[in-house]
């Protein structure tokens, strides 16, 4: 038995092993492949198909024309504007927070991070109602401002763009803080000391050494909160007015109230494309920045 095995040995066992490996590999990958095909690839393509299908079953761009004209177009612009504002504010506050936390001792930094992240685990609905209580005409914020004789108080902080941006920013803040904190922790503080040894003042060190080093983090954090805001639904719906209708609300209305699946599908595809465009934009900006650096140096 042993003799016959060794006689046949040279090429075959290795080949057998190799093909067996591949077969086993496919077997391992199969659940994931099936999962992705059924739950990801199929829905995307059926949505795409739905958005291109006319009521009589023929192909049409009618739904896209619809989505990009009139009220729908202004909803699209509102979505972009609110997302951009959210990205900006969550970036600014995220930067300030993360910068402060990154200077703390590890223990306190951990506590601070917990405080920043914990609200994220509370249901978005609960959080939103919390904001509504705080920001209403008789809410804590307006009451405090009135008591302090702030001119013009009470302010309208709900059911307008201010309310929406406050709400979405608070939702996005944990993401930006987490991302920026990681990047800031990665900056070698001794580089700042090196810059100081050459005579750079604090502002110069911040502008020419620190900021460039955390810029990649700023770009990705800003992009992340922008993309997440694009499709955000609950907060804008509850804290905004009719003028703050965002694309996700529009899709919801079309499906739930008008039973208009084709139009909603077109909006969904547009949302997806916008997200891709955002990703591409950041890619272009960063690579442009890099090539500019290269040129100015040579």
């Amino acid at each position, binding site marked *: 038995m042993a003799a016959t095995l060794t006689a046949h040995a040279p090429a075959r066992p290795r080949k057998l092993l190799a093909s067996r490996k591949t077969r086993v590999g496919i077997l391992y990958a199969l659940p994931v492949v099936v999962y992705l095909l059924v739950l990801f690839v199929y829905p995307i393509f059926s949505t795409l198909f739905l958005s291109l299908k006319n009521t009589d079953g023929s192909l049409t761009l009618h739904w896209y024309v619809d989505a990009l004209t009139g009220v729908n177009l202004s909803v699209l612009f509102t979505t972009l504007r609110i997302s951009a504002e959210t990205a900006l504010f969550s970036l600014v506050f995220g930067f300030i927070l993360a910068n402060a936390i990154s200077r703390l001792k590890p223990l306190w930094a951990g506590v601070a991070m917990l405080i920043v992240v914990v609200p994220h685990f509370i249901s978005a609905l609960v959080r939103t109602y919390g904001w509504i209580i705080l920001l209403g005409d008789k809410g804590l914020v307006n009451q405090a401002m009135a008591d302090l004789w702030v001119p013009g108080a009470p302010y309208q902080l709900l059911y307008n763009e201010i309310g929406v941006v406050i709400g979405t920013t608070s939702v996005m803040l944990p993401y930006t803080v987490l991302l920026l904190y990681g990047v800031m922790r990665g900056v070698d503080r*001794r*580089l700042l000391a090196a810059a*100081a*040894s*050459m005579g750079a003042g604090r502002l110069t060190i911040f502008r020419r050494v620190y900021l460039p080093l955390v810029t990649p983090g700023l770009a990705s954090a800003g992009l992340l909160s922008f993309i997440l805001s694009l499709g955000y639904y609950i907060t804008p719906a509850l804290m905004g007015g009719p003028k703050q209708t965002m694309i996700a609300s529009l899709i919801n209305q079309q499906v739930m109230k008008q039973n208009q699946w084709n139009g909603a599908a077109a909006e969904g595809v547009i949302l997806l494309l916008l997200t891709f465009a955002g990703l591409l934009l950041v890619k272009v900006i960063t690579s442009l920045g890099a090539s500019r*650096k*290269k040129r100015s*140096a040579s």
Partner: protein
Amino acid sequence: MAEFGVVTPSVEVAGVKQPTATGKALSVVALRKTYGDVVAVDEASMEIAAGEFVTFLGASGSGKTTTLMMIAGFCEPDSGTITVGDRDVTKLAPQKRNLGFVFQQYLLFPHMTVSENVAFPLTLRGVPKDEIRRRVGETLEIAGLSGFGSRRPRELSGGQQQRVALCRALVYRPPVILMDEPLGALDKKLRDQLQIEIKTIQQELGLTVIYVTHDQEEALVLSDRIAVMRNGLIEQFDTPRELFERPRTPFVADFLGAANFLPGRVLQNTDAHTVVRLDQSGGLLKARRHDLASGTPVKVAVQPGRLRACAPDDGFCTGTVEIATYVGTLVRAGVRIDGGDAPLLRLEVPAGRGPVTGERVGITVDPEDVNLFPTEQGG
């Protein structure tokens, strides 16, 4: 090179250092720093002349880096003053001191090219663009980095990165450049090469450098003067030759010369010599004249390279060669001295005439090469 300032190296006359006094570049007076109960630096004082290469040498925890950090301004002294030129900088922030600093970890700005890194301190000083380009080019050329200007730091080797860091620290002509173990992260061969480059650049440009290292050889190769530090104290601040040949404390003799120590007692003084009777062998050893009364217990310190093997009866003691290892140009021998179980006496003799294992030898030494340290009673 003329535009880089007057070269003012220190000169040595008969082994005694005489700075060519063009003024002091930096002085430190009674500098002290404590961390809780630990005294990191204890009343350190020194004056460093312009154009001088000074090294702080010591083991870790000796206070050498703390002293450097206080001079740089990264660490605040408890007391004492630091003067650069005529300016008291003790209370100034690092950026206001106008010093250069080379770090062990290079610390080049990763988001800038080599040229931008070197240009950085110049842009801070509002130097016109054309001049920046010229000076960056010149400095990179001195360091042998022409053509590397548009590279990123991460594309360079460790040695190249440290050269860039050096350029960045000297391009703006600070009156003093501080270096904190700049070659510590490099391998031996590269370190040797860069030592020579640093020394050459320092001499060509007449730079005043304060250098921190724990490597004795590196300190000897580079320095005009070395401050040997231990436990926050400057044990001795002198030229390499003085430190080597006239150590003021047993620690310095051991640290720099890896000296042999033999206990003994002063027997008598003559005009030129002090004679010591060794405790172990009872042999008489002639040292150069020390001002020590007869009867004083002493430690005799002799470096391995200054001892010679001779016929068994000609030396101040005799013994048996227990081990002899050939290390290229030298033979290192360990000799077991008769009459006791003291540590092996270490010898370094030129290869070829070296003693062999098991041989009976006498040991002799030139009186000029013997240093005596009085030992505390009972110590």
